[in-house]
C-alpha cells in the first residue's frame, strides 16, 4: 500500500502487526515500545526520517487506549503522573542540552551507546534478581500476602525518610506521605536519562516508580502509560512540525496497537506484581541487544 506522505509502499498488515505487538507490550508493561517498533519499521521499508516520529504518533494513541483501560481497573495515579511529568519535561530538556554541548566538542555516539547498555543491564539484572527472590518467597510462604510484594525495599524506605516540605500523599499508590521534591527529582532523573539517550523512558521510569517511590507494579504500569501520553504526544508534535510523521501510517499502526493495548492491559489482571516484573526484566536485555547491533553496524 502506498503511503503518499512518506512516499513509500509498505505492507499495511505488517504495520498493524508491529502495532499489535508493541500494543500488547505497552498495555502489559507500561512501556512505549519504541525500542522494538523502530527497528521493525525500518526493516519493512519505512524511511529513517519517518521512523521515530511516526512511531511516537502511534505510541501516543496506543497509550491513550491502554491508559483508559488501566484507569478503569484502578491502576492509574493521575496526581503522581502529573507531578512526574513536570520533573520529566525539565529532565528531558536538560539531558538534551547536555548531549548538545558534548556533541559540539566531540562525537558522543559511543558514549551514549555504552551508557544506554550499562543502564539497561543494571535495570534488567536488578529487576530479574528482585522478582525471582520475591517469587521464591511467595512460593515458600503458606499465606502469600496480596498481589503486590516487593523483595527489595531499602531504597523506598530511605526515600520515605526524607522529610523536606511539602509532603504529599498518593492514596491510589498507597503512599501516605512523601516529599514533593523526591517525586520531582525522580521525574527529573528519568527525564535526564531519556533526554540524554533519546529514548521513551518507560524502561527507566517503571522500575523507578516501583523501587524508589514504592508504587505497586500495576499502578506503576498504568501511571507510566499516563506519562507516555504526554511525552510521546509532545514528541509527535515536534516531529510533525519537522515533517517527519506519516499520520496515515501511524493511524494504521494504531489499529493494531489499540487491540494489543487492550489485551495487554487486561492481561495484567491475571498476574501478580513480581511475575510482571520478572517478565519486564527481559525487555532491557532486548534493548541492549538492539543497541549493540546498532553500534556494530556503524553508530547510533
Amino acid at each position, binding site marked *: *500500500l502506498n503511503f503518499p506522505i512518506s512516499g513509500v509502499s509498505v505492507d499495511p498488515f505488517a504495520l498493524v502487526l508491529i502495532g499489535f505487538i508493541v500494543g500488547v507490550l505497552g498495555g502489559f508493561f507500561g512501556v512505549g515500545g519504541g525500542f522494538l517498533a523502530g527497528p521493525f519499521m525500518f526493516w519493512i521499508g519505512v524511511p529513517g526520517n519517518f521512523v521515530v516520529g511516526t512511531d511516537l504518533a502511534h505510541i501516543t494513541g496506543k497509550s491513550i487506549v491502554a491508559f483508559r483501560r488501566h484507569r478503569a481497573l484502578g491502576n492509574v495515579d493521575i496526581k503522581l503522573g502529573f507531578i512526574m511529568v513536570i520533573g520529566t519535561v525539565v529532565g528531558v530538556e536538560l539531558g538534551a542540552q547536555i548531549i548538545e554541548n558534548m556533541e559540539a566538542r566531540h562525537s558522543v555516539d559511543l558514549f551514549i551507546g555504552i551508557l544506554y547498555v550499562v543502564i539497561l543491564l543494571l535495570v534488567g539484572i536488578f529487576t530479574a534478581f528482585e522478582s525471582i527472590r520475591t517469587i521464591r518467597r511467595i512460593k515458600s510462604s503458606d499465606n502469600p500476602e496480596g498481589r503486590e510484594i516487593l523483595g527489595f525495599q531499602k531504597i523506598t524506605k530511605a526515600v520515605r525518610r526524607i522529610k523536606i516540605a511539602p509532603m504529599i500523599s498518593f492514596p491510589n499508590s498507597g503512599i501516605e506521605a512523601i516529599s514533593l521534591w523526591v517525586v520531582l527529582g525522580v521525574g527529573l532523573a528519568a527525564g535526564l536519562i531519556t533526554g540524554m539517550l533519546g529514548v521513551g523512558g518507560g524502561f527507566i521510569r517503571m522500575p523507578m516508580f516501583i523501587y524508589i517511590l514504592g508504587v505497586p507494579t500495576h499502578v506503576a504500569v498504568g501511571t507510566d502509560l499516563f506519562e507516555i501520553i504526554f511525552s510521546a504526544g509532545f514528541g*509527535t508534535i515536534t516531529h510533525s512540525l519537522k515533517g517527519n510523521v506519516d*499520520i496515515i501510517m501511524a493511524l494504521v499502526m494504531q489499529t493494531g496497537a489499540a487491540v494489543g493495548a487492550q489485551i495487554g492491559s487486561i492481561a495484567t489482571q491475571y498476574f501478580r506484581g513480581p511475575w510482571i516484573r520478572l517478565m519486564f526484566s527481559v525487555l532491557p536485555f532486548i534493548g541492549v541487544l538492539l543497541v549493540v547491533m546498532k553500534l556494530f553496524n556503524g553508530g547510533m
Partner: protein
Amino acid sequence: VESKQKNSARRMIRNFLIEVAAYGALLVAYFFFALRYLGEPLQRIYETDLKSYALWGTILIVVQAVVLDQVVGFLVDFFKLHQTDG
C-alpha cells in the same frame, strides 16, 4: 465452588474475546475509512502547512483512540460484557 469458578473464568474469556473481536471489527472499518478519505487531505496539509498538519495529526490520533475506546465501552455495556473489566 470449583465449578462456579470454572464457569466464571469461561465466561470472562468468552466476553473478552467478543470485546476484542468487536474492537478489531471497528478498527478494520476505520482502517479503510482512514485510508480512503483521510489520505489526500492530509497529504495536502502536509505539503502546504506543517503547523496545521501537526495539529490535525495529533487530534486524529487522540480522537481515534478515545472514540474507538468509547464505542467499545458502549458495546460492552450493551451486550453486558462487564466481567472482562474485573
